[in-house]
């Protein structure tokens, strides 16, 4: 089993909290956006608390930091961009897997056309790397800064991410003569009121006529080829680390103690 944690830390210093999560959930790969500390500090804390050596993924960190306790023989960097990092899990029962980690710009600064272009670029880069690798066993995880139902996530030339396994297991569909592979987006199952889960991963409420309040900007999308190794019950939006809550008394992500985003955790049976 390989366990992944993704968290946008809102430029806060949260190495202790991240390390508690990594220990509690036996995290193998820690993926962070807007880390407020140095990689060295985060590495030291993870290593000390988990009593196993974590190391940063080689390459160029800009918007996304990746630390793992998997050995370099298991993990290899493949591609870095300003807001995207792709690495390869080399040895798995399914064969090599590509893991793409992204942090899209905020909608405070970009509009819908911009995020659409960004998701199209993400999709293109992943498809082309898959072409070079000769497989489509990929997943994308990160803060996409758009919701699962956003056009940029759903459209064929965007991430083409669908809400059910049944649809995703069709592998792809042909639209206007071109074949487009699917991603499965399990985040759809994490929206709205649930007795034991938060309604989303990010809360934003302004005095506008259209306000959704809760968003699922933090997502993991999986190609159908990875579905045999993914169980939906391993996917969680975390609200506490056993010591402290990440929510304020109103049940909203608390940037004062944690972050304005909630972390997501998921595993692959590999």
């Amino acid at each position, binding site marked *: 089993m390989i366990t992944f944690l993704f968290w946008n830390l809102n430029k806060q210093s949260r190495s202790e909290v991240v390390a508690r999560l990594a220990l509690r959930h036996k995290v193998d790969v820690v993926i962070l956006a807007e880390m407020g500390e140095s990689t060295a500090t985060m590495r030291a804390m993870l290593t000390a608390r988990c009593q196993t050596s974590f190391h940063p993924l*080689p*390459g*160029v960190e800009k918007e996304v930091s990746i630390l793992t306790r998997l050995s370099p023989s298991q993990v*290899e*960097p*493949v*591609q870095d961009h*300003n807001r995207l990092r792709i690495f390869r899990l080399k040895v798995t029962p399914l064969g090599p897997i590509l893991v793409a980690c992204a942090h899209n710009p905020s909608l405070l600064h970009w509009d819908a056309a911009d995020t659409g272009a960004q998701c199209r670029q993400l999709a293109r*880069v992943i498809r082309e790397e898959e*072409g070079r690798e000769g497989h489509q066993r990929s997943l994308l995880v990160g803060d996409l800064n758009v919701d699962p139902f956003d056009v940029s996530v759903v459209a064929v030339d965007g991430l083409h991410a669908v809400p059910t396994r049944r649809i995703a297991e069709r592998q792809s569909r042909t639209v206007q003569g071109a074949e487009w592979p699917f991603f499965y987006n399990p985040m759809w199952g994490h929206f709205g009121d649930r007795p034991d889960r938060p309604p989303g991963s990010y809360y934003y409420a302004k005095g506008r006529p259209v306000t959704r309040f809760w968003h699922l900007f933090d997502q993991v999308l999986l190609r159908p080829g990875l579905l045999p190794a993914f169980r939906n019950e391993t996917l969680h939006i975390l609200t506490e680390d056993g010591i402290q809550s990440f929510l304020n008394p109103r049940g909203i992500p608390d940037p004062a103690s944690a972050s304005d985003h909630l972390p997501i955790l998921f595993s692959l049976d590999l």
Partner: protein
Amino acid sequence: MPDAIPDLWPSDLRAPTTVVPPVAILKRQGALLSDKTQGVVGAIVLGAPSLTTETSFTYDFYLTAPAIGSSYKYHLFTIQHGMSLYPVKVSRPDHPVVEVTAEADFLTRVREILSDAKTRQVIDILWAQSEAG
């Protein structure tokens, strides 16, 4: 029998040209970078098949560092042009797209990118990590 069939191709099959394809200019920069860094950091140009059509060509320019990973690359910028090679659009993350209409302007734009502080920082990082082993 083959000699009885006429040669129907024009005699001036390839017209002389002095226009160097933009992708050739970029590939040359990759080779030069590798020379300058003793092979530690290089650069490659990859076609983007999903954006390439019969009349539009897109190429991504990546820095490479074999010691970090045999297929590792860092995306620096992308170019796109049509059948006539120019104009060329040069796009770079977090920068506006620049369209250049002649080779001299393309050289200027690429020189700007290759020598700017962010590019130099990335090269430094890749070089240092490669040497650290």
